C-alpha cells in the first residue's frame, strides 16, 4: 500500500473517531430529553418510594447529568457499558449476542443484494431500451417503494402459512445447525436485501450507461480486446466508484432496517433490542446500542473510503 493511501486512511480514522464522539454526545443529550423513568417503568406502579430510590441509586440515575456522561465514557474505555434495567444483565454481553444475530442476517443479505444487483444492473445496461431493461427497471422501482414490513408479511403468508415450507419466525444460531439457521434467516434476508438490491441495480445500470461510450472503451475495442474484458476491466472498474458509495450508505441503512425485519420475524437481534429498550426507557441500552450501530456504520464508511483509494488512483493522490 502506498504511503498516500495510508495517510488518507489515517486521516479518515481520526475523522471517524471525532464523529463517534459527537454521536455519544447527541445520544446522551437526547436520552435526557426522553420523558419517563427506566426504574419506574421496570418496577411497575406498585413499587414503593424506597424501592425506586434504591434502584435509581444502584443504576446511577440519581447522579448529575455530566457525571453520568463521564461515567459512561469512562466505562466505555474499560469495556464496560453498565447494566440493563429491563433485562438485569451486563449491556456489553447483551449487545454482543444481539449483534451476532443481526450480522448473521445483514451480511448474507448484503452479499445477495450486491451480487444480484450488480449483475441485474449490468444486464439492464447492456440491453438498454429493450423489454429486459424495462422489466428489470420496473422491478427495481417496485423494490425501492415496498414497505419492508409489508413485504415480509406477504412472504410469511406465502411461504410459511400457505406453503408451510419455512418457519414464520424465530432464530437459530449457525452453531446449532446450518440447516435450521438457513431456514430461519432466508425470509428475513430476502426482505432486508430487497431495497438495497433495487438500489444497486439502478445505480449499476446508470453508472454502466455513463461509461459505456467513453473514449477509453472505444480505444480498448479498437485494440481488439474482448467484450468480456472490456466490461469487467474497463467499464465495471470505472462504474464501480458510485456503486461503492451507494454500498456504504446502504449497509448502514440495512443495519437500521433490521429494526423492522427483526420485529416482523421475531428475531432476537439488535433491531428488536432497540425497539424494546426505546419503548421500555432502558436508556443505557439505547445509548450503547446506538453507539454500536454508529461504530458499525463508521467502519462501513471507512471501508468504502479505502476501497475508493484502491480502485481509483486519482482519489488517493488528492
Amino acid at each position, binding site marked *: 500500500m502506498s504511503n498516500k493511501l495510508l495517510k488518507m486512511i489515517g486521516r479518515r480514522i481520526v475523522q471517524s473517531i471525532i464523529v463517534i464522539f*459527537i454521536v455519544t454526545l447527541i445520544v446522551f443529550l437526547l436520552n435526557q430529553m426522553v420523558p419517563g423513568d427506566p426504574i419506574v417503568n421496570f418496577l411497575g406502579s406498585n413499587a414503593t418510594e424506597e424501592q425506586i430510590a434504591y434502584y435509581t441509586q444502584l443504576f446511577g440515575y440519581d447522579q448529575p447529568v455530566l457525571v453520568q456522561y463521564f461515567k459512561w465514557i469512562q466505562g466505555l474505555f474499560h469495556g464496560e457499558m453498565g447494566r440493563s434495567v429491563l433485562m438485569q444483565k451486563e449491556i456489553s454481553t447483551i449487545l454482543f449476542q444481539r449483534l451476532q444475530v443481526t450480522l448473521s442476517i445483514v451480511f448474507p443479505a448484503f452479499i445477495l443484494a450486491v451480487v444480484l444487483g450488480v449483475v441485474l444492473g449490468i444486464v439492464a445496461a447492456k440491453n438498454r431500451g429493450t423489454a429486459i431493461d424495462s422489466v428489470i427497471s420496473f422491478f427495481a422501482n*417496485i423494490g425501492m417503494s415496498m*414497505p419492508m*414490513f409489508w413485504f415480509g408479511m406477504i412472504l410469511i403468508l406465502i411461504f410459511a402459512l400457505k406453503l408451510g415450507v419455512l418457519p414464520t419466525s424465530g432464530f437459530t444460531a449457525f452453531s446449532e445447525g446450518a440447516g435450521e439457521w438457513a431456514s430461519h434467516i432466508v425470509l428475513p434476508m430476502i426482505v432486508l436485501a430487497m431495497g438495497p438490491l433495487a438500489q444497486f441495480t439502478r445505480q449499476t445500470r446508470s453508472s454502466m450507461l455513463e461509461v459505456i*461510450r467513453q473514449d477509453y472503451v472505444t480505444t480498448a475495442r479498437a485494440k481488439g480486446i474482448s467484450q468480456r474484458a472490456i466490461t469487467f476491466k474497463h467499464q465495471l472498474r470505472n462504474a464501480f466508484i458510485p456503486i461503492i458509495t451507494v454500498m456504504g450508505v446502504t449497509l448502514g441503512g440495512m443495519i437500521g432496517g433490521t*429494526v*423492522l425485519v427483526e420485529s416482523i420475524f421475531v428475531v432476537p437481534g439488535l433491531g428488536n433490542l432497540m425497539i424494546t429498550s426505546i419503548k421500555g426507557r432502558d436508556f443505557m441500552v439505547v445509548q450503547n446500542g446506538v453507539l454500536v450501530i454508529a461504530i458499525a456504520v463508521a467502519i462501513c464508511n471507512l471501508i468504502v473510503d479505502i476501497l475508493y483509494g484502491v480502485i481509483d488512483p486519482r482519489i488517493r493522490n488528492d
Partner: protein
Amino acid sequence: MNKKSAFQKIKNSRVVRVIFARKSVVFCLAVLLLLILAAIFAPIVAPYDPYKQDLKGMLQGMGPKHIFGTDAMGRDVLTRIIYGGRVSFTVGLVSVLIAGTIGMILGLIAGMAGGIVDAVIMRFMDAMMSVPMIIMALFLGSIFGKGLGNICLAIGISMIPSYARVTRGQVLTVREMDYVTAGTLCGASKLKNTISHIFPNCVSSNIVLMTMNLGNAILNEAALSFLGMGINPPTASWGSMVNDGYKYMGTNAVIAIAPGLFIMITVLCFNMVGDALRDAMDPKLRGTLGKKGKGKKGKKG
C-alpha cells in the same frame, strides 16, 4: 408580466417539458393527484364512517359492500385507506419541508461561514447520518411522543443531514462564481450576497431532493406506525392498518395487504416523479431529454 405569459413560460420550461415527455411519469402524477384529492375530500368520497364500529360485521372478506373487507372492529377498510392517505401525505410533505428548511439554513451557514462553524455543523451532520434514519426517527419519536405533528417533527429532523450536505456543497461551488464576486465588488454585503445570489442557486437541488425524499418519509411514517410508535389510534394510518391486519393474516389477508399496496403505489409514484425531476434538472443531460418524438429515458445521448 401578465398571467398568461407566466403560464406560457411554465408550460414551455424545460423541466415541465421533460417531465411530461415521459408517459409513466404523467401516469404517476395522475395517480398521485387522484389519491391526494381522495384524501382531501375523504368525507365526501369515502363510502363509510372511518371510526364507526360494527362488531357484527367484523373481518368480512372482499365483497361488493366492502371492496377491501372490514377490519377487526367492523370498520370499512377502503374508507380507512382513504382517510389514512391524509396522514401519509401530510407527514410526507411536512417532514420534508421541515428537513429541507432547517437543512438548507444549516448548509448555508456552514458553507458561507467556513472554518470552525463549518466544521462543527458538518461533523454534527455526519454524526446524525451515522445513526440509521429509522432508528433516529424512533428515538426522536420517543422524545416527542405519538401524534401527527410529533411524527412529522421526528421524521423531519432525522432527514436534515442530507439537505445540509447538499446545500453546503452547492454553496461552495456558487460562492466562487463570477456573479457573486461581481456582487461583492458592487458593495453587496455577505448577507445580501447569500440571500440574493447564493440561496436561489441552492433551491433547485433541494427541491429535487425533497421530491425524492417524499416517498422515504411516507415509508418511515408507515414503519413507525407499524411499530406502534406513530399515529395514535383510532386515526387511520396505512402503517398501523397493516399492523392491525397482520394478526389476521392467515384468515383475512386483504385487510393488511390493501393498505400496504397503497403505501407502495404512493411511494412508487413519488419516486418516479423525483427521478424525472432530477434528470430534468441535471445540466449534464441537457439536450438529451424531452425532445419531440423522443419520449424514452435517455441517460446518454
